[in-house]
């Protein structure tokens, strides 16, 4: 909605808890539906952001990081939406899965994100993780 140049920023902070993930989904729905995305692309963004927040909530629970927040920062330009999902949920240690399940929900979430947006970058930070996703519009 901005001319190319400075992106418009929408920033949301929610508690890193299951009951607030829906708030992030609604907010990003509002952001994406104002851009040049198709109906399906808006759904993709909603699901991808929902999955990223869900993963943060699950790590916060595993790592005992109660009382931390998730920041969902959308950077909006005419032709692209960049969303950063930043948590303070601690380190994401891979567990050596003894179940050998091919479809554990954690992997499903990561798989969905990859399939739904154009670019994903995951960066470990001091206290948590930043997931950056980019979806091109139009």
């Amino acid at each position, binding site marked *: 909605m901005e001319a190319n140049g400075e992106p418009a920023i929408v920033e949301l902070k929610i508690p890193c808890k*299951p*009951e607030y*993930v*829906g708030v992030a*989904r609604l907010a990003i729905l509002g952001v994406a539906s104002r851009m040049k995305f198709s109906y*399906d692309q808006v*759904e993709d963004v*909603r*699901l991808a952001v*929902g*999955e990223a927040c*869900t993963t943060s*909530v*699950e790590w916060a629970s595993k790592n005992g990081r109660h009382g931390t927040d998730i920041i969902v920062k959308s950077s909006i330009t005419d032709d692209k939406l960049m969303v950063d999902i930043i948590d303070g949920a601690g380190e994401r240690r891979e567990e050596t899965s003894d179940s050998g*399940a091919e*479809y*554990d*929900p*954690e992997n*499903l*979430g990561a*798989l*969905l994100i990859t*399939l*739904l947006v154009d670019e994903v970058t995951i960066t470990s930070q001091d206290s948590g993780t930043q997931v950056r996703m980019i979806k091109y519009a139009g």
Partner: protein
Amino acid sequence: MNFKIETENLEADVPVIELEGEVDVYTAPQLKQQMITLLESGTKQMVVDLTKVDYFDSTALGVLIGGLKRIRERDGNLSLICPNPRIRRVFEITGLDKIFDIYSSADEAKAGIRVAR
């Protein structure tokens, strides 16, 4: 919260869990609990109806997968009713449409389960 769960019988011995609204990390535990209850009561054919679902995330998929594994261990099956293409898409892009029997209506599900038995 936009979520509802109800259990009825599609036919004798075939309970159907009807979900409505958003099934996600917050509400999926209720689905899991309901499936556990049914499994503990010995159910061998179970149906989950996603007709009225408008959001279905990986947590919810995980619960279905867990249920499917357990019910198949006893040579039963868990089938889905999912006419909504947007929700169906989540199964398709993850390849899960190949491990679940997905029907478009309750009637189709009835017919399909009868043949399989």
